[in-house]
């Protein structure tokens, strides 16, 4: 069966670590980075389990700063 695989790219310099995407992700695979900050001093988010992402775009839609680009591809296996 064809399966949707997704991937996100976070603009970590633009991210303010508000965590709205962390709550919006239905698979719970986004989290604030541990002990890492960007040049403005914000903890940014990163994906914790990239293989599980389906590219549903929920995280990107709720992001107030438009930091997340979402990719999605149909996999034939």
């Amino acid at each position, binding site marked *: 069966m064809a399966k949707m695989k997704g*991937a996100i790219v976070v603009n970590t310099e633009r991210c*303010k670590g508000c*965590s709205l995407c962390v709550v919006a992700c239905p698979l719970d695979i986004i989290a604030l980075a541990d002990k890492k900050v960007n040049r403005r001093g914000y903890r940014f988010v990163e994906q914790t389990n990239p293989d599980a992402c389906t590219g549903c775009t929920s995280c990107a839609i*709720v992001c*107030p700063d438009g930091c*997340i680009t979402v*990719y*999605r591809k149909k996999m034939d296996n």
Partner: protein
Amino acid sequence: MENIISPENIVYQKPKLLNDTDMHYCPGCSHGVVHKLIAEVIEELGAEEKAVGVSPVGCAVFAYKYIDIDWQEAAHGRAPAIATAIKRLWPDHLVFTYQGDGDLACIGTAETIHALNRGENIAIIFINNAIYGMTGGQMAPTTLMGMKTATCPYGRQADLHGYPLKITEIAAQLEGTCYVTRQSVHSVAAIRKAKRAIRQAFENSINRRGSSLVEIVSTCSSGWKKTPVEANEWMTDKMFDFYHVGDLKNTVED
């Protein structure tokens, strides 16, 4: 993984009209989401060259720095008056104002009500977070009863502070308005609905159908002294009981 991240697989990205300037808003602020929706709608309407925004005084005073369309900065509360002039001089343009509750529902109440009552062909985006965010969290006309702010530290009381102003309900009673709605941007579903509302308001302006008012019930995590996630929860718990979300008036036939 690497073969997924390629331009042909992009399903969502920051709209091009929203430029790369870092927004000054606090983390999690609803303004960012609404800015993004406005940029997306203008792109989808192909109105990049015909859109004129009027920015307010308040947190959104720098809106003109973030969305790459024509803007005019207005004196405090006077955005609907400026928008009236722009739309009358350029009748084929998409003209909208972007105002907060302090700008629209306090100092600019007269301009707002009269512009809407005259049926000016403009769209008003009204961000209502029930507090004065920029100046440090003071009580606004839209502050809820019992809500604590810097200037009503024991909570808003009717005998001392009066009652919260439902400007959107007032607008729905005016003959000049064609579309009055209240939306929010706290969830994916709500954001999709808010985007449709903004799109309709902008189409009403382009097609000269009358005034449109889109209120967005918003959060102010800094003013409310909560995290962005807690602020969204507080908004759905407390704000929606008083500020009911949905269309109040729509005279435009689909």
